[in-house]
């Protein structure tokens, strides 16, 4: 097993670019393909954005992103120390309704779900939020 981690003591939305670049290159490095990388980057980008804007209220906050392999699965873990919040409880939007009838926004968690095989939330022992994005069976068995 191999993992790559990017950690900030005080991240802001200005770091999102850097975070997306890290995720993309880490995923490719661990054997994911461009498609998998695209999905996970999009999904994790939403989660980090929410953590920074909703969780930390747009103030600098600690976040860490870990890309790791588990057998043939590829995982991205986001850890933050913002107030506890479990995004998997957010109800899905109705994306079949026409745009004029839809509220603006509310698509972030939906994208996280759509773009991963599994989205797992847990509060860690030291009270941090841990959100794990899983893509199943995407690595070659040799990995």
């Amino acid at each position, binding site marked *: 097993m191999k993992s790559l981690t990017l950690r900030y003591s005080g991240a802001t939305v200005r770091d999102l670019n850097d975070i*997306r670049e890290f995720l993309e290159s880490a995923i490719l490095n661990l054997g994911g393909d461009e498609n998998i990388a*695209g999905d996970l*980057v*999009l999904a994790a*980008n939403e989660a980090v*954005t929410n953590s920074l804007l909703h969780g930390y209220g747009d103030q600098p906050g600690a976040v860490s992103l870990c890309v790791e392999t588990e057998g043939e699965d590829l995982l991205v873990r986001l850890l933050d120390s913002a107030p506890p919040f479990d995004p998997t409880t957010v109800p899905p939007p109705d994306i*079949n309704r*026409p745009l004029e009838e839809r509220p603006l926004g509310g*698509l972030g968690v939906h*994208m996280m779900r759509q773009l991963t095989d599994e989205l797992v939330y847990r509060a860690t022992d030291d009270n941090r939020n841990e959100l794990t994005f899983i893509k199943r069976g995407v690595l070659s068995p040799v990995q």
Partner: protein
Amino acid sequence: MEINSWHETGHVPVTILQLKGDLTSEDELVQKAQAAFQDGARNIVLDLSHVPYISSAGLRAIHMVYMLLRSADPVDEEQAARGIARDTYKSPHLKLVKPTKNGLKALSTAGYDIFLDIFDTNPQAVASFK
């Protein structure tokens, strides 16, 4: 994000907004579209061919541009109501050009590809406005 804009005329005058960079916040695109709208733009093409990623904030911006253009056309509103019922409605005022793979992924997870025409080139998009 860098946004270049220019005008072209097909059957009607069209404003092209060519986006470069990740579309991950709403401000720039919305401001640029509002400025164009105030200058009289009623038909907009978003050229997404140089946009590696679109986030939900980017989708929100596209949503707002859509609403802005729609607000100026009462006929569209009525047609939309009938069209949507028949599942054939596409915005007559906002068209998209060549989103990247990841861009298209974002658009389709949100179902935007159902309500917005997507073209391969700017000329095709411009020609499609009536």
